[in-house]
């Protein structure tokens, strides 16, 4: 019941330092926060985490076309070898790896050295349960289920400043993902446009204002528990978002977001970044990667998912233009898929997968991580791509180097056994 007490204390002490009353009468909290958010200015760093739910087939996303075992193991679902005259073939990156052809919109980002790949990345835990593996990847504690908060929430908490924006952390979706649950506080929203109290005749009528005030006072009482704490943050965020008018900001630079879950989420995240509401961490989901049956190859079910995925990420980079210098997008998935095709032209749950890092100071145009090989003796448990980069090594490098978060609280109990990847200059 009192899980938010510490958060209340931290926020309370921060406000008293500023000499601002937390109750009625003083300068509204959101204005103080907004002011601070603007103080930090356009140089504020932003991390976008994109979760590919359902376990993306990393071997189709970033194809090891130079590994002869790949074509031997994969049969009909292998992505054809790079061929310059064939638009449906693997897009070669470095002579060994290549992008799935449906990810063509991301190719210019690779060429401009803004996109990096970390392959054979994953969890040291061997579970092949979607639920557990997602839980571990988001809590940041593989094998430990009792961890109460998420790794991104811990990162935010350790970089918390007085008067931080209620929009420091945002998830697009109806529910807050595990990675952002914790004492730092975060906002989950389906859409910017719907993020308000709506009365009889729309959000601008006096009736709505009145109802909003009523609900706000009901949840203002503090942070006695999850409900109250969330409620209070909600109304601070509502006010700030309304004053920033974020939903009116149109995509720039001719960016064309694809329809669908990820395109919609990234379009709105870009709006929040451009509205300067103090965003530091955003989280977006994309479903539909659990391709047990008929996953297809250069075309088909999985290719359609990649098309949407690649187009959404490319549109986001296009939309933000120069602002991408302060933004990093990190993609992740709970595990990879079996190296061999299963009985239904699909793949079952595997182990390592590939993750992408885009933007900011990332040294792109390179595939990072040691390639373990696809020979039977090289596979994890004789069937799956082995993990050579612990996902925590990657996540910690991004969070510390890009966001400036201290490493220690991010992944409790984690002692890196490999040097850093060197993703950042």
């Amino acid at each position, binding site marked *: 019941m009192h899980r938010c007490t510490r958060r209340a204390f931290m926020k309370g002490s921060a406000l008293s330092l500023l000499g601002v009353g937390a109750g009625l009468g003083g300068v509204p909290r959101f204005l103080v926060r907004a002011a601070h958010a603007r103080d930090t200015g356009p140089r504020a760093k932003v991390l976008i985490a994109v979760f590919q739910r359902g376990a993306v087939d990393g071997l189709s996303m970033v194809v090891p076309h130079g590994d002869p075992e790949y074509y031997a193991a994969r049969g009909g679902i292998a992505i054809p070898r790079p061929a310059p005259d064939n638009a449906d073939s693997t897009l070669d990156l470095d002579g060994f790896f290549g992008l799935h052809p449906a990810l063509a919109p991301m190719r210019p980002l690779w060429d401009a050295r803004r996109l990096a790949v970390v392959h054979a990345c994953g969890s040291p835990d061997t579970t092949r349960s979607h639920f557990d593996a997602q839980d571990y990847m988001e809590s940041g504690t593989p094998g430990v289920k009792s961890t109460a908060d998420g790794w991104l929430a811990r990162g935010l908490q350790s970089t918390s400043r007085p008067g931080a924006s209620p929009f420091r952390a945002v998830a697009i979706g109806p529910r807050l993902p595990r990675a952002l649950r914790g004492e730092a506080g975060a*906002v989950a929203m389906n859409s910017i446009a719907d993020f308000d109290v709506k009365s009889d005749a729309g959000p601008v009528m006096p009736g709505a204002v009145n109802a909003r005030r009523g609900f706000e006072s009901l949840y203002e009482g503090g942070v006695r528990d999850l409900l109250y704490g969330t409620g209070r943050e909600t109304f601070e965020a509502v006010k700030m978002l309304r004053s920033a008018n974020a939903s009116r900001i149109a995509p720039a630079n001719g960016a064309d977001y694809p329809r669908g879950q990820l395109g919609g989420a990234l379009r709105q995240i870009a709006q929040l970044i451009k509205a300067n509401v103090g965003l530091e961490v955003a989280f977006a989901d994309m479903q539909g990667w659990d391709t047990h*049956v008929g996953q297809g190859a250069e075309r088909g079910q999985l290719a359609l998912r990649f098309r949407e995925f690649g187009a959404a990420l490319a549109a986001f980079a296009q939309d933000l233009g120069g602002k991408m210098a302060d933004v990093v997008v990190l993609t992740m998935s709970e595990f990879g898929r079996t190296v061999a095709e299963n009985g239904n032209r699909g793949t079952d749950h595997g182990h390592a997968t590939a993750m992408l890092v885009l933007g900011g100071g990332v040294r792109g145009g390179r595939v990072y991580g040691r390639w373990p090989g696809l020979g039977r003796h090289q596979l994890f448990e004789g069937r799956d791509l082995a993990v050579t980069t612990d996902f925590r090594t990657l996540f910690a490098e991004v969070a510390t180097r890009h966001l400036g978060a201290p490493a220690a609280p991010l992944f409790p109990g984690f002692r890196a056994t490999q040097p850093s990847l060197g993703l950042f200059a």
Partner: protein
Amino acid sequence: MRRLSLGLTWVLVAGGLAACSSGASVPGIREGAPPRAAAAPPATTPADPAARYRVTLAPSPLTPEQQIVHVLDRLGYGPRPGEVERVRAAGLTAWIERQLEPGRIPDEAVERALAVFPVLPLTAAELHRDYPQPRPQDVQRFQGGQMTREEMREVFPPERRPAVITAQLQAAKLTRAVLSERQLQEVMVDFWLNHFNVYAQKGPVRWMVPDYERQALRPHALGRFRDLVAATAQHPAMLYFLDNWLSTREDFTLPPARGGRKLGLNENYARELMELHTLGVDGGYTQGDVVEVARCFTGWTIDRPQEGGGFLFRPNTHDRGEKRVLGTVIPAGGGQGDGLAVIDLLVRHPSTARFISSKLVRRFVSDEPPPALVERAARTFRAADGDIRAVLVTIFSAPEFLSAAAHHAKVKTPLEVVASAARVLGARLDSPADTATPGRAAVAGGGAVLARQVAALGEPLYEAQPPTGHPDVADAWVSAGALLSRMNFALALAHNRLPGARVDLAPLLERVDRRQPAQVLERLFAVVLRGQVSSDTRRVLIAQLESPEIVRATADDRGPRNTDVEKLTALVLGSPEFQRR
């Protein structure tokens, strides 16, 4: 198909107990002996002498009224106007015992209300006939501009489209939650729908779901766990959703006439059967067990899945070899029986008793299930051979169930918040025929409009994509956006802006004078929150009474100083108290 235990009655359950080596008795089940004398806890009256399942409520720190509201909130979707008084008169224990035997509860009102949803009684084949996919040539012509929208509506009428199936199911589910007298049955059907989740949007699953709920889940919702596992394992909806219909022995090759392609194992169902349906993820199985279980279920497939066919066992795709599951050898040549043997093994495994019990305790008691109660419920599960009602009796009779710690400990799911709001205001649900279809909605009416609210709050019914179903813990449902959506729902319902779900606040106010806002507010506290209002909420809402928009100072057609009852009702429905049960 061998259906071992569909016809088992409680007598056989008791017979099974005698064979139990421990000889443990099952709390709450009458075994022919005269009913035990109950300990006379508060708020109870003599139990129904015809009840087969005896509940003995533990002494509770809650007041008798709190106990009744707590039970109505937990075993159902909250009280309707006058219901607390009716339960008090009938006796709380008797009410619970009746809920355990829904067949004995007349439910004509909901049956009449459901008659407007033609998809409910239909088989998958009938649904394919009545709600077919558009013909490819029509789609092609429409997309190519050779067919107008009107012509398309002619050949593919909106009321015959496949989307209608899910929309009617969703509407029926809300109709049942709001109107049914068999509240515990509806709660348990929802519980099992999430436990044995299938995703209506995957392939032809949509056409299979009405039958899945009607045949595989509903008859066993308060029955025996094994029947649920066996029925779901053989149902086309589950076979398709978790891909088992495609799984074959490793060395199976299609005949040349059908492409000559090599097929093989698909582990999806085997894994989820153990992880999500029975043992739980820490239940003690290995990747090796997943493969062996998948081998056992090879050949369990669907006869023409795209046309609504049923379960089919194909001996030629079945792996005839010996298997070893959780250390138990399943001899070669068992055929279709291999899968049934696995089910028997899994449902009697102690991990399953513990996993199912902990999920039930989480649903009925608290997000963090008290371990001692889980242990007792698991013991009942084992002793009663998976009799779900016996496990529920253990839970309902536990001191933890009516404890102060459990009171208001659960945050309502979207389904619960929408259904309980409609119930507490006595909303009337119009039939689709009496309601204009709003926008592009496939189905109109009170149930449908409420179902769309549930979806907007983050819980699209029958459309949870992950095999885990929709979650049952507060953490998953409390977020900034979700809270705003709940407030917006409260405003829309109280202001009668949900076409088809009609709310009349006048009867709730009874004789309270609308010109006395403080009295109106007190009445709303009594009706909506049953007086369970915190001092903070009371203080805040009393302060709202000073607002000129709550108490209209202007002369409108309702006269001066006329309380805005709708807005006040919305505020009470949107209060933190109403988000809990």
